[in-house]
């Protein structure tokens, strides 16, 4: 599959020296996508577009934002009231953060269900987990920037997590703060890092895509593509599918931006930061609630912190914890059910995280935390041994087109 002869002389001049047109042609034009990809495979490109929206809205917010403890809150209010379209840009950035996590969480659950983390896509999966960690750091520091009550106390509680480590804990926290409490030095460095990490995410996403294009996409059947009869060219088949998803996404996103811009927000963050008064209910943004629930359900401070970080790090071990060779949940009768139990468990953790850790919620939180780790560390390794997978189809085209012969015939016809 060589690059086409470029007809336009300017294009040809450039491509001879820097084959950028050939690169796009290969990776986005003729790149072979499995023909059975469903709409869950459009969330990757959606995440990429949301990242671009975040960069664009973030950079113009930074034009108008002042990273200083005495001025940050007012500068954000000025963006909301006085800067041309400032309210729109800020609401796009605020809701974009939430949208980013929704899209990425669906993207990840897709990977869990269809076994996309298995051989030969382990590194692709790791890069995804790294991107999730970077996103969490970026979103956390971004939330501090408006310097409201939730910004301040969220920053205080989360940075204090590091004080759980014996001996060095306190020094680490002072070092993170640049003082003896969250204050102007903290805000300054969080702004610089918030700006920087967004571009580190761009880099990580590029390497993620590189790994993807080496081993190519998994698919809903989880079996390898066996030849051209199993694939379609990326353009126009997948570009159109991605665009359709994007239009649905933008419709829902606009509904939030224009009609419920503070739906995901906390009213307390419209009160300027006050280091002497803690708001009665500190809750993190919704996308951190499950981890927060894990943290609080463990009575010991250090173990709680370790469990919280562990809930993400266990994802790095997943390719080895899941001992089944079959990728797709479609052919794993037991895993298919346990997958949904796991999804419900994550939602329960989120629900518990939003409520005070008392009585009924405390018990529920503990059970859900235990189940979270039980799923990864006990169930998945055992399942590979005890589960009897359904017979796998011999190729992707076989069940789609009803038999190998038909598939080959169709393909010949087209060629």
């Amino acid at each position, binding site marked *: 599959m060589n690059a086409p002869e470029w007809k336009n002389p300017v294009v040809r001049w450039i491509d001879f020296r820097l084959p950028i047109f050939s690169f796009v042609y290969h990776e986005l034009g003729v790149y072979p996508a499995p023909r059975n990809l469903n709409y869950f495979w459009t969330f990757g490109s959606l995440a990429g577009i949301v990242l671009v929206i975040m960069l664009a809205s973030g950079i113009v917010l930074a034009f108008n934002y002042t990273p200083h403890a005495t001025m940050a809150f007012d500068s954000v209010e000025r963006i909301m009231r006085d800067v041309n379209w400032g309210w729109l840009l800020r609401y796009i950035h605020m809701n974009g953060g939430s949208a980013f996590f929704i899209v990425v969480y669906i993207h990840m659950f897709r990977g869990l269900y269809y076994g996309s983390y298995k051989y030969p896509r382990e590194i692709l999966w790791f890069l995804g987990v790294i991107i999730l960690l970077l996103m969490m750091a970026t979103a956390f520091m971004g939330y501090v920037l408006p310097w409201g009550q939730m910004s301040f106390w969220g920053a*205080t509680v989360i*940075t204090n997590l590091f004080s759980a480590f014996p001996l060095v804990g306190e020094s680490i926290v002072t070092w*993170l703060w*640049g003082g*003896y*409490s969250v204050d102007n*030095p903290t805000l300054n460095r969080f702004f610089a890092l918030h700006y920087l990490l967004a571009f580190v995410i761009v880099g990580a996403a590029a390497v993620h895509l590189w790994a993807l294009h080496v081993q190519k996409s998994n698919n809903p059947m989880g079996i390898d593509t066996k030849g051209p009869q199993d694939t379609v060219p990326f353009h126009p088949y997948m570009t159109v599918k991605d665009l359709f998803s994007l239009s649905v996404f933008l419709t829902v996103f606009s509904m939030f931006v224009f009609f419920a811009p503070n739906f995901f927000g906390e009213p307390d963050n419209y009160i300027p930061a006050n280091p*002497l008064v803690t708001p009665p209910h500190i809750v993190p943004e919704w996308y951190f609630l499950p981890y927060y629930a894990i943290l609080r359900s463990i009575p010991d401070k250090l173990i*709680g912190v370790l469990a919280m970080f562990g809930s993400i790090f266990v994802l790095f071990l997943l390719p080895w914890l899941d001992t089944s060779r079959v990728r797709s949940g479609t052919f794993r009768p037991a895993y298919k059910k346990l997958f949904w139990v796991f999804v419900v468990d994550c939602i329960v953790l989120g629900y518990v995280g939003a409520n005070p850790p008392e009585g009924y919620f405390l018990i529920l939180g503990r059970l859900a935390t235990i189940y979270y780790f039980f799923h990864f560390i006990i169930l998945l390794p055992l399942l590979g041994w005890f589960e009897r997978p359904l017979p796998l189809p011999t190729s992707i085209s076989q069940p789609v087109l009803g038999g190998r012969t038909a598939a080959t015939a169709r393909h010949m016809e087209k060629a």
Partner: protein
Amino acid sequence: MANPAHSATSAAPGHDEGETRRDFLFLATAAFGAVGLGSAIWPFIDQMNPSADVLALATTEVDISPIAEGQSITVKWRGKPVFIRRRTQAEIEQAAKVQDSELPDRQADASRVKKPEWLIVVGVCTHLGCVPLGQKVTDPRGDYGGWFCPCHGSHYDTSGRIRKGPAPKNLDVPDYVFLSDTNVRIG
């Protein structure tokens, strides 16, 4: 030595010495480079620690004469709240009679105060840093009559010691001196 060209010439006197001298130079250069790199990186890390101007603000003087028995005030020291409570006789006794075995973080009340009447502690929960309630008369003071942290439910007693909840340690006692009967310097 695996290289035959080498072993052929290594018979020549002094060559082995040259080999070790080269090894030595190599190691010395690497060690020198590592130390140099390490000391060059340090400023990039240490710049994040509290700066001179932050350290310069590290003491606060307070006039405690207006505080009546049973009242508390909150002052700001190093950006954090400090609780100054003028304890009642009942509160002092309550704090003194607690057995060590009842305390998750064992400390006698006497070692936490300079004058039993005045309890001075940093108002930052040792769990994850919220400001506990109990300074205002209307605030909940928890099961032990001191402070209550609403964030994750830690209870402190009338000596600022942790009694119940996820916090691992007692409220910190900052360094302070009584400059006179009515003046304290914190820090």
